[in-house]
């Protein structure tokens, strides 16, 4: 297939990809689930965390780390999850349900291009959300901005890859918009449990829980982000865990995806 596509006229151009990204962006703006989750939720949670006095406390009196600091990576994990399991897969499932993906496959543009456009749009959304959280918490709530910048970026990118791959698995297996919504919502709880949304892992005493958490995508992500915020490069273990999950889910999405 690739041999023939290289030479024939009508090979999809960058023009087509740009137009698809533009049109997916318009749809994201007009049906702003992703915007609400990606931008609305972090701003709202930041304000809550900033205003509640409990989050200013130190976790351990001998360590300057406050609950606010600990919650910044958890917040990032939460918005990434919301974007990845709701905003990313649902438009794909809807467009498959409406046979739009099938219609696309009768044009010179492969439906894979639409998936790429959808990933690109949600990636931008995720970046905006993360910048809002990091900048907002540093500017208004005196949380130190990540001092190990390359480590932080690497951790964030791997976490995004991991979660987006999970989102694409949902897009691959969900037969309908409702099913996608249900699967996405159901996944938020276990993912976020291990991220420490309800109880940050620093405050959990049994180390077994800690170890299990560090093997989950978001446990590893939060661990890696927190370390780089505190000035140390993330552990290879946490990065490897995320990379492994990203690979597993990507392969699963590719194997399971149905265009119609």
């Amino acid at each position, binding site marked *: 297939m690739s041999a*023939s596509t290289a030479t*024939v*006229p009508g090979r999809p*151009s960058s023009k087509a990809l740009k137009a698809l990204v533009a*049109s997916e962006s*318009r*749809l994201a703006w007009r049906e702003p689930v992703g915007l609400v989750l990606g931008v609305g939720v972090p701003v709202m949670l930041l304000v809550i965390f900033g205003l509640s006095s409990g989050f200013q406390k130190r976790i351990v009196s001998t360590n300057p780390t406050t609950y606010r600091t600990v919650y910044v990576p958890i917040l990032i994990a939460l918005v990434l999850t919301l974007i990845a399991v709701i905003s990313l897969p649902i438009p794909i499932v809807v467009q498959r349900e409406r046979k739009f993906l*099938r219609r696309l496959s*009768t044009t*010179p543009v492969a439906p894979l291009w639409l998936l790429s456009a959808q990933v690109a749009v949600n990636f931008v959304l995720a970046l905006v959300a993360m910048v809002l959280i990091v900048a907002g918490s540093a500017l208004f709530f005196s949380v130190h901005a990540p001092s190990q910048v390359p480590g932080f970026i690497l951790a964030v990118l791997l976490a995004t890859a991991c979660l987006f791959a999970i989102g694409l698995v949902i897009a691959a297996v969900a037969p309908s918009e409702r099913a996608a919504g249900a699967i996405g919502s159901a996944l938020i709880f276990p993912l976020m449990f291990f991220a420490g949304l309800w109880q940050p892992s620093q405050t959990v005493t049994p180390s077994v829980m800690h170890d299990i958490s560090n093997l989950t995508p978001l446990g590893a992500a939060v661990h890696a982000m927190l370390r780089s915020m505190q000035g140390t490069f993330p552990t290879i273990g946490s990065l490897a865990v995320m990379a492994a999950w990203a690979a597993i889910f990507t392969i699963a999405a590719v194997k399971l995806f149905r265009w119609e």
Partner: protein
Amino acid sequence: MAMSVREDKRVVTDVQTSERPAAGIAHPVIEVTGLHKAYGATVAVEDVSFVVGNGEIFGILGPNGAGKTTTVECLSGLRVPDRGTISVLGLDPQRDRHTVRALVGVQLQEGLMPSKLTVGELVDLFASFYPSPADARELLELLGLTAKRDDYYKRLSGGQKQRVSIALALIGNPKVAILDELTTGLDPQARRETWGLIEGVRDRGVTIVLVTHFMDEAERLCDRVALIDSGRVIAMDTPARLAEREGGGNHMRFHPSRPFDDALLVGLPEVDRLEHQGDRVVVSGTGDLINAVISRLATAGVEAHDVQLESATLEDAFVRLAGHPSETSNGAGER
């Protein structure tokens, strides 16, 4: 001029004797030979062959589930045939999929567009997919969608959505357009408007494959039709010839001014059958039935009063060929 060109395209291909389906078509654009496609144990297309000439409107007709959609899905490269060969503009829809997709515009049954894009945005989006797209403004004008340019797709009526899907099938400046169940679900007014549009599209030089289960649509639009039943082509010709040849001919009813001997008319070459219904006579036959009957009656001094002529329809032809009526109801889609 234009008329004579169109007449030339109406070349008869006799299915029964066509070893090579290309025989008789001057400029074949589509050639399908021995197409076979099954989904698991269900055979959707048993054995389908046909040829479509340049600039034709070629109809694929048959009841729901006859294999029409599967046939055109193989043409557009959406499905891979199990057996048989397909050539579209000299290309293989699987091997040369990219070129075929750039040259063939498709309107799918039941395809819906994203609801919150406007008509103009949709047309521009699809235009970006093709190397040399048609002029979007002109196309929207042709399809009567200019006033709807800035409306969201979801706000459109069924007929308008159908016109958008025709616009999207044509935006790439295709050489061939495949239109599946073009007017299913439209009201009679919208159907007639759509038919006019399709004739306009053909006049732009596009070869059209039209899938339908409406016999009247095929009679109105198609230069030639293939009747498909249970995955096989059961007849192929111009709608008029098919109706005449396979539909049991025309029926002429009249009141004779006085009784006459049946032999008077039965001997005519145009007459196949003669029946009495009360004091009415029904003569069935082909060709110039009315003139032959009236002039023969005149020789015996008989006049025909209250003459009614009923032409055989494609539906009649279908019933006689398939042994069961086609379903002209707006049924659910088929595979």
